[in-house]
């Protein structure tokens, strides 16, 4: 008998109803080119933490990581308000750029996944 049951994977229908939320520690800086820099604290990996302990007196647990968003990325970022679900974001992004729903769906979900992996956003289940 399994003691630790694995949480069942979300199917696509449920995943589209999830609500992405921005990490409150993210800082935004606009460049002259119109691009947006997102800065957020990230944890050092244990290997680099150990090296820090050897070479520094006051080793720090985090460092500032930055990612640069182009205009399409900024449009998705600005749509994130912590209330809209993924499906609504896709629809609004598709309307904003006159895109087909399927094309917008692939672009937005891939982008949100990459932001989620970096810890820039979190995903709330409905």
């Amino acid at each position: 008998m399994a003691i630790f049951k694995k949480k069942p994977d979300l199917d696509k229908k449920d995943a589209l109803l999830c609500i992405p939320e921005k990490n409150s520690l993210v800082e935004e800086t606009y460049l002259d080119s119109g691009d947006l820099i997102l800065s957020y604290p990230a944890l050092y990996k244990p290997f680099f933490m150990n090296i820090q302990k050897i070479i520094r007196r006051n080793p720090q647990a985090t460092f500032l990581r930055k990612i640069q968003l182009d205009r399409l990325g900024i449009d998705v970022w600005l749509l994130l308000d912590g209330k809209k679900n993924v499906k609504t974001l896709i629809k609004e992004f598709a309307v904003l750029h006159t895109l087909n729903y399927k094309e917008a769906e692939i672009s937005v979900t891939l982008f949100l996944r990459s932001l989620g992996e970096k810890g820039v956003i979190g995903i709330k289940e409905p």
Partner: protein
Amino acid sequence: MLKENDPLPKTIAWNGIALNVPLTWEIDSLDTTHLLIGEDGSPKVEIKWTDSPSRFTLETYLKRFISQSQKRLTIKIHELPTPRSFSHPEKNFEFFFFSWTSTSSTGNGVLIFCSLCKRLTMIRFFSDSRIDPPSLPALILMSFTDHPPSDQTHWQVFDLKFSTPRSFELLEYSFKPGCYIINVKHKKTIQTIFSWGPASFLLTRTSLSEFASQRLPQLKGLANTGVCIRGNYLEWSYRPARFKNAQILPFLSRYSLFTVFRICHDQKKNRILGVMVDSPLRFEHDLIKGSMIGDL
């Protein structure tokens, strides 16, 4: 054009077949002889077709097709009688209705054999509703065609809509967000359809000419300009060499292709559309003129 109050306002046309579906249905996956259409990740209808061999009897051909489909899709197929009130505008179709069951779901479907183009098509609905008019499956079925009614093959997928001469067959395709490419071929003439988007983003820091040169570095010479049905276009005509420095060997020039490429920014659709024709015989300007970015 979308029709008001039409339950099936959207047309999907791919590699010779065409059908109408509800507005919210989208293509989930496609192949040269397969389409899976769904809504919010749930499959709604699946279409699989095959061209008949040169010599066959319909009975054995049907049996083999059903057997292969059952194995490939891991479903069980049970024959159903033809609904009494069902009739289709295409008189060359023969229908074989069935129900199907798999471990997780059930539904109804139909096998269609066209005596004109000898194509056999299986349409599988992921719902138990009967294929009786005016049910949704029956309406979809009545809109289905498996060969173009004219000398042009109509294509309509993911907001990309165009026609090609009927003799052209699908060679390759690629649908990536921001870039669709479809290649069709007739004898040694290859027509390539491009659609890039969103144009307002792609053309923010570059001109249409620079964009074309970035995407297709093989373009040579100066572009002609003009106005087509979708707006202003740029057009290149050149004869690419088969390999580097091939042009210094005059006898090789007869093996080089005649290439015409037209690109246009469709501001209404926010797309950049391109059509390229490679032909061994001549510059195929007529194909370009009759394309989705053809002349006014």
